[in-house]
């Protein structure tokens, strides 16, 4: 029998297999290893700490219940992140039904807006500079509509293709492409420190 002190030394595959056999402590170790990653994805989508905690916890519970379905084609963390994304999308859909969302007129208006591009020189060795840039990107993401932000996150950070994003977001590929285009254009404008009103 595996001792509790052995879990931090165990491989991810070993922990997943033990969890499949019903070993809750092995699963707890998986949670400890990846909880920040799962929470970060939930937070980037929900933009709310409490909701992100709740969604990420729900993802872990669902992950436990579906361990038998984990095929190992992707890493365990990627698999669980997909579960978290689906839960967040469901929650965002529920929230959308409960609010009257106005479409950002500028962000979905075609043409007439130039690409004002950010001019950052990123030096990967300088952690602080990179961190600051990430902060600015994050603030810009926070200013996008839920739909635009979600598409951009799924494409840029999760590296999902148009088709898979469309499936997950329950919309057409054309809609995904359109949202992605406007999201990128708005990010370009926001990261250049320009006020949107100037370009209406």
């Amino acid at each position, binding site marked *: 029998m595996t001792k509790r002190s052995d879990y931090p030394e165990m491989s991810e595959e070993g922990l997943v297999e033990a969890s499949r056999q019903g070993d809750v402590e092995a699963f*707890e170790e998986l949670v400890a290893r990846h909880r920040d990653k799962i*929470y970060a994805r939930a937070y980037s989508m929900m933009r709310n700490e409490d909701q992100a905690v709740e969604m990420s*916890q729900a993802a872990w*519970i669902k992950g436990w219940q579906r361990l038998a379905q984990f095929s190992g084609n992707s890493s365990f963390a990627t698999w669980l992140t997909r579960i978290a994304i689906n839960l967040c999308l469901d929650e965002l859909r529920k929230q959308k039904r409960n609010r009257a969302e106005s479409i950002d007129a500028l962000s979905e208006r075609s043409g007439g807006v130039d*690409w004002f591009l950010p001019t950052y020189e990123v030096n990967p060795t300088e952690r602080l500079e990179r961190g600051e840039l990430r902060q600015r990107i994050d603030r810009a993401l926070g200013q996008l509509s839920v739909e635009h932000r979600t598409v951009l996150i799924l494409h840029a950070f999760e590296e999902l293709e148009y088709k898979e994003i469309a499936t997950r977001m329950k919309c057409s590929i054309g809609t995904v492409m359109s949202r992605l285009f406007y999201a990128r254009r708005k990010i370009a404008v926001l990261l250049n420190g320009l006020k949107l009103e100037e370009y209406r």
Partner: protein
Amino acid sequence: MTQHEQELQLQAYVDGGLTQAESDRISRWIEKDPGARAVVDGLRRVRELMEVGEVEVSVPVNRAFYWSKIQEGISSGTTSRVANREPVRGSFWLRILVPAFGLAVLALMLRLWVSVPEEAETMARYFHEIDGPLAEENAMTFHSEAAAMTVVWVDSRGFGSP
């Protein structure tokens, strides 16, 4: 093709979502069209920016607290999973037998309820005045089954006589 459709084609080009033939066509187009070139450059630079990555965030609650809710969900989920894994066998027969059993219990209760007056009647039969053959002789008979005795009282003067 509308302007927006053209923009989406340029985006698909940047994202590598076109066939080789389509990609070659876009390459030729952006060489001639500075506007198309600007859109492609813009899209590429945003892509590069996003590759810088996301802010690093951590769960804002401690490990034990975070895990406790997951553990709670797992425990309740496990119970329901076990219940789902082993469905109640013979549910068809149970659907018939359970109401039948209920009816049987009801019938038994009714029977007991009805039997109470019957018993009382029986007891009354044991403890009552019996008009015996000596009635005209002004005699009364009392019989008790429980006490296994019969008492006959004879009044030679006659009842009701002064």
